[in-house]
């Protein structure tokens, strides 16, 4: 129960909130929105995760192949799509919601890659 919401929370046995890390600032939070918790519990949504490296690789791939720079948050979804795609037949369609644009992340990604821009 944090900041007025009841949801899944990264916490210790005494209810203190644990520190978090994510390459994407928007995901660097110890809980998820309660609506997601509800959708998970009701079985309507299956949730997956991606590591920083997987998200960065997906960011790179979409930028190079499509010229679309995805936000680092959405890059996590792309990483999942890239892992899922080889398991599906050619006719099956995957839709990824690019919830944000990556222009805001370009400097951050350059720093991580050690690129001067």
């Amino acid at each position, binding site marked *: *129960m*944090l*900041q*007025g919401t009841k949801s899944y*929370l990264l*916490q210790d*046995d*005494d*209810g*203190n*909130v*644990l520190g978090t890390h994510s390459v994407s600032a928007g995901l660097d939070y110890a809980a998820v929105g309660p609506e997601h918790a509800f959708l998970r519990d009701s079985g309507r949504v299956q949730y997956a995760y991606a590591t920083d490296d997987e998200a960065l690789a997906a960011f790179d791939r979409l930028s190079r192949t499509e010229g679309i720079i995805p936000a680092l948050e959405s890059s996590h979804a792309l990483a999942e799509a890239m892992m899922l795609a080889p398991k599906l037949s050619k006719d099956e369609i995957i839709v990824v919601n690019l919830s944000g644009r990556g222009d805001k992340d370009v400097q951050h990604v350059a720093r991580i890659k050690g690129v001067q821009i």
Partner: protein
Amino acid sequence: MRSRISSKFRSLKEQNRKAFIAYIMAGDPNISRTREMVRILEDCGVDIIELGVPFSDPLADGPAIQAAAQRALEGGTTLHTVIELVADLRKTTKIPIILMTYYNPIFKYDEEKFIEDACASGVDGIIVPDLPPDEAEGMLKLTKKRPFDVIFLLAPTSTEDRIEKVSKASRGFIYYVSITGITGSKLALDPAIETHMNRIRSVSDTPIAVGFGIATPDEASVVARFADGVIVGSAIVKKVNAPDEEMRTYLLFPA
């Protein structure tokens, strides 16, 4: 059954005195210092003790109490250890003790078990800044027949409806937050505060204690003119490691 907090306010009223409520962080920097501090506070005429239970995300607290919580957490203080501390303190003192913490540690502990254990150890009440009365149905139900007060907060921004709701729900006393800010902020009393007090008193007989930002004896005496109790927190927390003499001098002035 009347709680120790209500009894205290009642006897102070008979003597035409106001309550001095002191806040300290349990386990800052360790439990044995807290034990000493409780003794010093009681010796110096403090009427009610508010024991902070450290939490990682203390949304109502300013830098002094945040730092105290951090020290207490590093020392391994938890809601469990604070309840044990109160059980131990109860061997030597009857001073009313209120816990102040946030809802998640209680939720994780299990609300029902928490009330059970807190009452058994001799805790007299609780303040949970992130638990408004609208969400406190469970806790109010669990404590209804016990001498255990659930204390709610009002602020200068509270609307008429909130004042009525909170004033009626709060037990022991009503915690009036003097400023729109965090603990330890500079005190700047809203001129409307006295009007607010009158409004609260028109809907409830529960005593009103004012806290947040009260650091000096002068500030305390201004507040004591219209409130039933004065809560001092950050100013005491900052002195937790000061020599006992300095602490006593600060607490005893002006008495």
